[in-house]
Structure formats: structure tokens, C-alpha cells
């Protein structure tokens, strides 16, 4: 193909609108706001969609033959030859779409607000670990206050949105394992229909579950390579040390139990006592489960990190006997098959990253979609719950992504969650 300064690059195949039919994969060269579809590029699946495309009045349409599912000699269906489509219907779609732009903005605003809340909580968290030894009373009081605030807002709604925090906010410096565990634990506790009093204990004990690590040298805590037997033994002692610290700080008995037993496993393979099944206190099981999940997603050695999807899969497929079955099931239901932070390929062949999960509809997450025609800052955010046509086809590893898509979606190095504390009416739905 000749290519020079004055000749254009051929960028695809164009067909006239009367050649267009169901099964063509089209690429609309219009602003996203100038057409009623969720995506700029998609497969025409129904005659209705075809009519809507024709209603745009385009003389020619760019198609991607490779992704089209139509034989070239296939006769055009009736729809293509039919006269003007139902205008009002399309108008309604456009109105709806504009409303969705509004909602996009709203989601973004809420995520931003959420990030601010998270930052505040992270700051309190940092104070906590400082105060715990010097001023235990103050530390316990502020932990209680923080958790009470969380459970208060959490219990107002049946549905809870779990958002992925941006690395820039929840960067490595602000990554607080205990906060992350506390958030997930409280959310899981709510899914298990625990009372607010119990949820408060869950939250506080999650915040303090690792206090015993203060006595373990950083050399062991931050070691990226596998620990030696001796180092591992030392590390395991943090459960015991934690109880001592907790007693001194005047933490309640249920909290102390979590600190002492959050590494026990249902099959008896945990530590320090190798307790089995029901012998492990319930809250210790709950926090142990969430703790395990967070450690898989955010290990000390970041190179060993696996995606949230992989982490849940691993726990479900291989480690199922270690965990409380009901709790694991609830965790999976809560985070879904594609937890926030998972990079996915959608059924319409687009790429995206899961931003948020509505715990009531875990298989239909909110996804940020890659579209080369839309600037990253204004990336299309699609709530799959409102897009019955489109689903998640597959979870991907970030390095499977083509370069430009990776740049666009910029998957997080740390997977940090926070719930949406400002939501009072549930997710707005069309």
C-alpha cells in the first residue's frame, strides 16, 4: 500500500449505510455524546440497533471485518431497508445517555469524595499505630470512633459500593494493610448480617490484628525473599506478642481473640495453636479470611502480587478447606468474580478495569472502558448493571494488555478498597 506525505493512511474498511446489517462490527467516528450507544465500537446484534445506527444518517460507516460476524453475501435483513426508525425512542435513548454522562460525573465525584474519606481514615490509622504504645487509651478511643463512623454510614443502606482507590491517593506510602482489612472485614460482616455492635468489634480488631508485628524486626517483615525457618517462627510469634500488647492497651476479650487467632485455619494448618473448625473464634475466622485475601493482593514483595481475581480464584479453588465456607462464599459474592482492580475483557471485545462493585450485584461491576477516541480523563465509565447487552468475558493479567490500553487503564500496583460512605439512596438506577 503506497504511503507518503500526502497520502492518507487507510484506517479501515468503509461501507455505505445500505450495506450495513446485523452482525457488522462498526466503529462510529462520532463523539460519544452524538450517538446513543454505550460504546463507540460494537457489534450490531439486533435489528433495533441497526435501525438506531441508520438513524444517525451516516453515509458510510467504518467497519472492522475481522470482528464482524456477517458473511459478505448475506442478504440485507428487512431492517436495513426499512424506512425511518422510531425517532422518539432514539431521542429517549439520547436523553438517557446524557443522563448517564451526568451519572459518570457523579460516580467520579463520589470516587473522589471516597478517596478523601479514605485519606482521612489512613491518617487516623497512622496516628493509631503511633499512639498505641505511648497512649493506648487515646488509640483505642480513636479506633472505636473511626469504626463507629464507618459502621454508622454502612448500615444505612442495603447496597454498598466498594471502590478501588487510585494509586495516587492510596499510594504505597498510604497503603495501610490494617485499614484495608478493616474495610473488607466490616463489609463482609455486614454481608453476614452481623449486628452493629459486632461489626464495631470486627472493625477495631481488624485495625489491631497485627499489632504484635511491632516486636518483629523490619528485616523479617520487609524481607522480599522466602523466610528461613527461624525467621518464619519469629514472624509467627506476632500473634502471641499481639495479645500481650492488646492486654496492656486494655483491648476487649473478643479483640484479643482475633489478634491471637487470625492465622488459625479451618483445616488445622494454621498457627499458633493449629486450632480446627469451630474451635477458632468466629471473628478470627472472618478477619483471617480477609487478611489472607489482602496479603495475596498486596504482598511485601510486589512482584509476587496476583490480581484480585486470581487471589479470590486461588482461595476458592485451592484453599477452600482453610476457610469458613460460608464466609468465603459471602466474600466472593461481595467482591464478585471480578473484584475492583481486575482488568477485564468485555463481551463486546472492549477492555476495561473494574472500578467498583455494588455488593448487591457482584457480577455486574462498574467498569472504566478503554476507548481510544475518548481522552483518559473522561474515560467512559459503564455500570454493567445498566448494560444488559454487555458482560465481562474474561479477567486478564495487566501485562496481557496491549501497551496503549495498559497506559489508558493504568492498573493499580496496590489494590486498596474503600466503601462509599456518602451514598444514601443506593446506586442511582435508570
Amino acid at each position, binding site marked *: *500500500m*503506497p*504511503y*507518503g*506525505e500526502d497520502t*492518507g*493512511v*487507510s*484506517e479501515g474498511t468503509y461501507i455505505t449505510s445500505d450495506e450495513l446489517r446485523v452482525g457488522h462490527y462498526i466503529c462510529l467516528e462520532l463523539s460519544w455524546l452524538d450517538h446513543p450507544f454505550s460504546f463507540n465500537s460494537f457489534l450490531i446484534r439486533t435489528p433495533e440497533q441497526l435501525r438506531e445506527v441508520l438513524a444517525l444518517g451516516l453515509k458510510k460507516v467504518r467497519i472492522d471485518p475481522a470482528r464482524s460476524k456477517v458473511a459478505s453475501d448475506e442478504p440485507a435483513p428487512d431492517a436495513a431497508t426499512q424506512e425511518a426508525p422510531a425517532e422518539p425512542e432514539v431521542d429517549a435513548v439520547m436523553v438517557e445517555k446524557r443522563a448517564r454522562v451526568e451519572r459518570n460525573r457523579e460516580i467520579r465525584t463520589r470516587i473522589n469524595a471516597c478517596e478523601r474519606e479514605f485519606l482521612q481514615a489512613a491518617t487516623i490509622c497512622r496516628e493509631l499505630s503511633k499512639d498505641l504504645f505511648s497512649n493506648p487509651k487515646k488509640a483505642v478511643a480513636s479506633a472505636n470512633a473511626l469504626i463507629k463512623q464507618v459502621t454508622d454510614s454502612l448500615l444505612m443502606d442495603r447496597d454498598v459500593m466498594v471502590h478501588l482507590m487510585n494509586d495516587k491517593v492510596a499510594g504505597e506510602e498510604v497503603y495501610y494493610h490494617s485499614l484495608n482489612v478493616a474495610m473488607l472485614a466490616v463489609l463482609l460482616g455486614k454481608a453476614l448480617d452481623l449486628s452493629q455492635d459486632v461489626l464495631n468489634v470486627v472493625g477495631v480488631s481488624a485495625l489491631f490484628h497485627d499489632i504484635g508485628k511491632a516486636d518483629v524486626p523490619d528485616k523479617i517483615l520487609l524481607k522480599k525473599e522466602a523466610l528461613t525457618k527461624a525467621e518464619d517462627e519469629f514472624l509467627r510469634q506476632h500473634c502471641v506478642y499481639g495479645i500481650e500488647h492488646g492486654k496492656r492497651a486494655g483491648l476487649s476479650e473478643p479483640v484479643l481473640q482475633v489478634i491471637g487467632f487470625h492465622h488459625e485455619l479451618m483445616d488445622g494448618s494454621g498457627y499458633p495453636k493449629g486450632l480446627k473448625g469451630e474451635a477458632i473464634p468466629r471473628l478470627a475466622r472472618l478477619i483471617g479470611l480477609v487478611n489472607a485475601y489482602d496479603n495475596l493482593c498486596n504482598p511485601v514483595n510486589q512482584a509476587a502480587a496476583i490480581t484480585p*481475581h486470581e487471589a*479470590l*480464584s486461588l482461595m*476458592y*479453588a*485451592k484453599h*477452600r478447606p482453610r476457610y469458613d465456607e460460608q464466609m468465603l*462464599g459471602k466474600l*466472593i*459474592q461481595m467482591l464478585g*468474580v471480578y473484584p475492583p482492580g481486575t482488568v477485564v475483557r468485555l463481551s463486546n471485545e472492549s477492555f476495561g478495569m473494574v472500578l467498583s462493585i455494588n455488593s448487591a450485584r*457482584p*457480577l455486574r461491576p462498574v467498569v472504566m472502558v478503554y476507548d*481510544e*477516541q475518548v*481522552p*483518559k480523563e473522561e474515560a467512559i465509565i459503564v455500570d454493567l448493571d445498566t448494560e444488559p447487552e454487555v458482560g465481562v468475558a*474474561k479477567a486478564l*493479567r495487566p*501485562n*496481557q494488555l496491549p*501497551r*496503549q490500553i495498559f*497506559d*489508558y487503564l493504568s492498573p493499580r500496583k496496590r489494590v486498596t478498597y474503600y466503601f462509599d460512605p456518602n451514598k444514601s439512596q443506593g446506586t442511582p438506577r435508570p
Partner: protein
Amino acid sequence: MSTAAHARALLSGSGDILLLVDAATRLVLDANAKACEDLRYAPEALIGRPITDLECALQDAFYWDDVASGRLVELHDAEGLLACGDGEMLPVVKSITIDEGPTGRWLVLRAVDARASSAAADELEASTSLLRSIFESTAEGLLVLEIDGRIMNFNHRFAELWQLDPLSMRDDRSVLRHMVRACRLARGETSPWRVLLSRDEDEVEAQLALRDGRTIRVRARPLLMQDQVRGRVLTCSDVTERIMYERELAAARDAAAASERAKASFLAMMSHEIRTPMAGILGMTEIAAEQATDGQQKRFIDMAHASAEGLLVIINDLLDFSKIEAGKFVIESIPFDREALFDQTLQPLRWQASERGLRLDLVTGGCARWLVGDPTRIRQILINLVGNALKFTERGGVTVRVDCLDQGPEGVRMRVAVQDSGIGISPDRQKSIFEAFTQSDAQIGRRFGGTGLGLTICARLCELMEGRIWVDSQPGSGSTFSFELPLGRAGEQDVATLEAQLPERADRHLRLLLAEDTEVNQLYLSHVLRSAGHQVEIVDNGRSALEAVLSRDFDVVLMDVQMPGMDGFEATERIREAGQTVPIVGLTAHAMEGIREECLSHGMTDYLSKPVRTTALLSMLARFAGGGGPREAGGGASSGEDRSSTGRDAPALADPINRAEAIRNLGGDEGLWRELLGMLWEQADTDLPLIREALDQADAQQARDVAHRLKSSLAVVGAEPAALACARVDDLARLGDLAAAGLAYDALVACYEALCAQERDPN
């Protein structure tokens, strides 16, 4: 029953994993042989097991939850993960269909082992991410274009270099346009499109100057897949700093070259301008010392003279060294007499040696006598090495050995070894001894003086003459400095010419009478003469000289012209009147025009000007030693006599211009010499009539001024005879003898005309 058996047979015959699940209980009702085999379960262990024990992909949790709540959905070609009896996980591609069983709804799960494709996918992913890591880890920006110019890929470094936002680039063209827009498109520079779109099979390289001041080097190479050109790979790197550095370097080099050239012409001028007054200082201090009556005054003047001599050596060294370093040293290739060269060179050094009680021997092995090379430079090396040897030797002596290696018909390799019995040189100092600015050690430098450049100059001269120099030494037991030079053999014609020029050899010791009233000169001259093996009798006035000549036989008389009582002229006349034909050489300090004629007119055979230079004296005596008479008057040019004090007609007979020397003094720049010569013609055409006019009008000052400036211009181009005549006009005008100056002017015009005849283009 038979239907069930048929079904079972079908089930077990399938190559796929088949599991029959009860939708109500989600327990496995039946499994085929393939299922038991692949999942590594005994049939009885499989049947009755909850399906969720086997199905363990994350989405299965949701699927079977839905089934439990009565929402049955069929699945086709879904990815799945089955837990095996041994704990392994089996990746599968599965389908689930709904069937109506006798007791309720059944689900039929059909699965195919996907390990192979999933392993292949994993491997592909691993190698893809490795390739991507490499792609991103290179220091250079990479852009991969398809054959039609479409962009296949680029890395972050590329985006960074070209400052493009990878996300805002909608299409391939906009990336290329962005790159071209970033370039500064100057007339005559490579169009960036050429390298971006080149389809050559070879590498194309361009340095693109960007508007922001940076320079990016882009290299495009074909992307080959299975020997087919599939596109091009462009490698981009920021070479701004390197280019800046190179430019600075080039500028510095140009500046250095310019300053080198300026330095060379400056040196050429300085060489002339410094040596001339130095000669004046040396001559005048010598005369002043000779005439000083006060002992202390004389000591001071002697010290000044010695200092001036030392200074001249240093200046000569520095000028030579600078010229060599500037690459402006021109080596001549002329025929010469090796024996004469060595004899003449070593003669004054012998005197120096004997003064310090040292021997200086010359041993000649078999070596050709008539050679072609640069005798001046060989002499310079020899003087340096022997001078050094003497300087560093306290007792014993110095032996110079000359040998010829590889004596072929065309040429020889001459080896000269200068061996001393001095203090020697330690091995570590031997290494650096030929490098600039080192001397055996700083203390020695202070003790013996000198610039320390002598050996460096020798080494460079040897290098220039394509020879080599080296040293063998043992501290305490002396050193031997040797050099080897390739030299040509002189042709027959040349040998004849050389032989004709040859003075008779001073192989006969002469009986000499020295008539000289100054004690210092008596000492000096008698020392020189005795060192050369002559017998010397000294008298201090004309009358004693006359008596001596009349009473005893002398081969030569050296007669000071000015003596108390009977002066040299009168004594000579009396000697001639007495019928004596002994050669009488007048010694005079007068640099006056006509002095030669005056000497001859009083019956003298030849004359020497004071201060008497050893070489001039000895070579003149050599002429008489052979029994031959005095040379024709006017042969002064080859007698070693300083031309500035020889007779008026001498310059006219000499070569009007010493072109080679002048060009050498100009650093070998013949163009510069021609330029100066052109300027001279113009100047002389104006200045010569001006001098004539000034002399006619008795304006001595004007005559001097013009003569003086013309002299410099003549000297610079090497018109030595004319320059000397010019100097004489100046001198005589200064003395107020305008008539004599007029004669000198005529000589100047004659010299100048000879010069024009030879060098000036008639056009």
C-alpha cells in the same frame, strides 16, 4: 434397562469428561470413564459428590448458587477449573446442558482438558511480557512501523523523546505528523519524512534537529520476518549533548588551529627578531670585555656575556621545540660531507672538553662519507648529545662513534653513539628522558642549567628524519645516547661540488704568531689555537710581531689591527717590505665598510672580525694548513665568517636569497613566504627611492628610518645580502658618513636587483 445400558455405553465411550448432575441436590449422579480417569477419582468416589467440590472456578460459585435457587442456565464453551482427586486443578473448556430426568432436572456437564492450550497461553503470555519488558527497558525510543507506514508499536521512551501523549494520538498519521512538526525544517537538512518513511533494505540514519533545540538521531532498519520485509524499526536517541560536545570540540579545534598558525608566524618573526639582537649582545659584550681595563668591570661584562650565551641556547631550544611541536619544522635533504660535518661540529666541543680536563674522541667505523640528509639537524643533535655528555661527566671523557648499518647503493643507516663516563641515568628516568620538560632531576637542572628540552628536540628531530634515538645507561657508570638515521648517498655530481667547497684539512699543526695586546683575547685565542693542536707564540704589539716574524718561521700570523705603538697595518707593511710572504690575518673589531680592502691594501692576506668565533678562526687556519694559499677574496660566505662584517662585495656574490631558511623560519609556510615577498616588492619600490632621496638631501635620519624598516622586510623573506646592505646604510648614516652610506646604498640596489632577477615575476 436396555436404554440405560445404551446410555451408559455411550457415556463411557466418549472422549470428553461427562458428568451428570442433579439440579436439585447438585450431587454427581453419574460420571463416565474419561471423567474418572482425568479427574483421578474412583467412580464410586465421584458419584454422590457435590459438584461444587469439583467445579472450583470463581464464577462456578455463582453458577451453582443460581442453580440452587432454581435459576438454571446453559453454558457453552466456558472456561472452567475442575478439582482432581489428588488436589491438582484441571483447566477445562466446558458446556452445561439442561435435561429432564425422571426425578427432576438434570444438568449434563461436558468438559475437555484445556491444559495444553492453557499452558501454551501461559507460555505465550510469559514470552510476550518478557518481550514487552525488553521493549520497554531499552534506553532508546523504539517505533515499529508496518510496511505501509502504520504504527505497530512504540515504547514509552519513544513517547518521552518525542514528547507525545500516547493516549492523545488518535491514529498513526498523527504520530508521524507530530514527529515531523517537532522537527526544525531547515533548508538543506534531511526531511524527517525521508527517514520515517524510508523503505530501503539498508539502515537509514538521520539526525533530526528539533524545534526545542534537541537533536534526535533516528536510525531505521527493516523489520524482517522470515526474510520478508514486514516493516521498519526506528531507533531514536537524544544526541543533543553529544552534538553540543562535538561542536564545542570542533570549535576548540578550529580555534586551536588558528592560534597555532598565528603562533607559528609569530615564532618565525620572533626567531629572527630575538636572534639578531642576541648576536649583537654577544658580540658587544665580548668586545666590551676585551676593551675593559677595570678588572671588576670586566668580570661583570664576562658574566653578562656568559648569561647571554646561556640565554641564546635556551631561546634556540624553545624556538626549535615550539616549531617542532607546531609541526612547522622542515627537514632538508641535501648532499653533505659527513667527515667535515663531524669534524666541524666536534671542534668547538673539544675545546670545551679540554677546558674541563676531559677527552672527546671521535671513532669512525666504516661509513660512507658523502651522504644526503639534513646536516644542520644532525649537527644540532650531535652538539646536544655531546654537550650533555660533557655536562654530566666529571672525569674521563666522551667518545662519539659513527657507524653505518645497511650500506646499500641508495642509502645507509647511520648510527651515532655518544658514550660518556658520567653520572648515568636511573632506569625509571630513562623512560621519560626524551619527553618534554623533564630533566634527570630538578636539582641537576639547577646545577647544570638548560631548558631540559634538548633531548626532546633531539628525539623529535630523529623522528622527523625517520630515525630513532635511545639511551643505555647504568647509574654511576655512564650513559650511551645513540641515534640512527636513514640517509641517502650523494650522487657523483654532488660529491664533486662538495669536494670543491672542501677546505684543506687542518691535519697539519701550524706554528702561529698571535699579535694581540688584550690579555683576555691572548688567553682566549691561544687556548683555542692550542686546543686545536697549533703552536702559538704571543706578542702584544706590532714591533714585537715584526721582530718575531723576521727571526722565526711561522705558518700564519694573526695580527690585531689596533695595537699600541706600532699597529697591525704598519707591522704588516714592514713584514711585507722585509720580503716575508707569511699569511697574515688581520683581526679587527670594526664592522666598517671597506675594512677588508684596507686590510688587503696593507698587505694582509685575509681578516677576521672580532669577536673571533672559534669555527671561523679554525676553518680559516685549516685553509692555510693544507699548504694552500688564502682563498679568493669574497669567499667569506663559506669561511664561516659572519657576513655582517665582511666586505661590501661579498653579499653580491652570494645567493641573493636564502629561501629555504626563510620558509623554515616561517614554519614551513611557503604561501606565507610568497605573500611576504609580494609585499616586499611593493615596499622596496617605494623605499629604495626614498633612501636615495634622503641621502641626496643629507637627511641621515630619514635614510636610517627607511633603511631600517626595509631591512626587516628583506630579512624576513631571506634576502640576506640585501638586508645586510640595508643595515650598512643604516649604520653608516648613523655615523654621519653619508658618502659611504651612498656606496652601501649602491650595493643594496645591486643586491636588490639580483634578488628581483631571481625571484620577481617580470609581470
